[in-house]
């Protein structure tokens, strides 16, 4: 009995827990329409969980959480095109945050800001192809500023949560 390797079970539980948290945050954002200066801009609270996983666990854990969240979101309150938007933004932002953290060795908040900006750029690229118009790029400066502010907020949240050392007992 004691020889059984629990690490896989622990990892599965941990990732599931994180996906659930990310999903609930997306859901809250979907239900409670937090008023923003520019219509359509969101805080991207779910990115708190992705960034937290990236900080405290591993890259692959964060990737699974991201994919799980994207699929759940699309299944429950989205469709194929909204999946395309969120997946493109999410994957680009994940890639940029990985590079920022692990390669450039930036701190949490700077990585989060870069993640926020790249998420918006990813979505703009999809919009550009879907709408077959370059008119969407008019929003780029607004989205860069919005992404910076949202990234700053999320980064500070992750910093606060990381101190709790939730997964340190593994």
């Amino acid at each position, binding site marked *: 009995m004691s020889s059984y390797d629990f690490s896989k079970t622990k990892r599965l539980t941990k990732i599931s827990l994180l996906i659930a948290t990310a999903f609930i945050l997306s859901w809250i954002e979907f239900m409670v329409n937090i008023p923003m200066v520019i219509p*359509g801009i969101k805080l991207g609270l779910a990115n708190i969980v992705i960034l937290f996983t990236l900080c405290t666990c591993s890259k692959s854990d964060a990737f699974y959480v991201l994919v799980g969240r994207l699929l759940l979101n699309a299944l429950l309150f989205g469709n194929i095109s909204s999946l395309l938007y969120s997946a493109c933004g999410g994957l680009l932002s994940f890639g940029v945050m990985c590079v920022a953290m692990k390669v450039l060795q930036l701190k949490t908040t700077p990585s989060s800001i870069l993640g926020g900006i790249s998420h918006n750029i990813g979505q703009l690229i999809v919009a550009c192809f879907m709408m*077959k118009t370059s008119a969407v790029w008019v929003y780029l400066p607004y989205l860069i500023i919005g992404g910076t502010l949202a990234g700053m907020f999320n980064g500070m949240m992750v910093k606060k949560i990381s101190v709790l050392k939730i997964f340190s007992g593994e």
Partner: protein
Amino acid sequence: MEKRQRIFWIILIILLVVCGIWIVISRLSVGEGNYAVIKVDGEIIRQLPLAEDTVVMIDGKNNIRLKVIVDKGSIFVEHSDCPDKICEQKGRITKTNENIICLPARTVIEIQGTEGDTVDVVI
């Protein structure tokens, strides 16, 4: 380590300043628009002169219908069947370079100074 963080913040501030300047320039360079061009999936389906008050129904993609109103030189989406309603929240647009975009319906409403001479009007 510390140096990298500092370089990051400097680049970020430069980027934000550039964005600020970009926004100011795009705000200043707008002119009075005369025509509204409505595109669905990249194709121009309507051109409306802003001087004439009208109400048009636009059939967007994914079976989304938009009720577009031209009123007193401005154009706005009064109702859309889409779930996010961002096009409705955008409100009235009057100047060139301004646009209303409905992502689910793949519909773009742009304001232009004069009627585009290179495009055919398809009604």
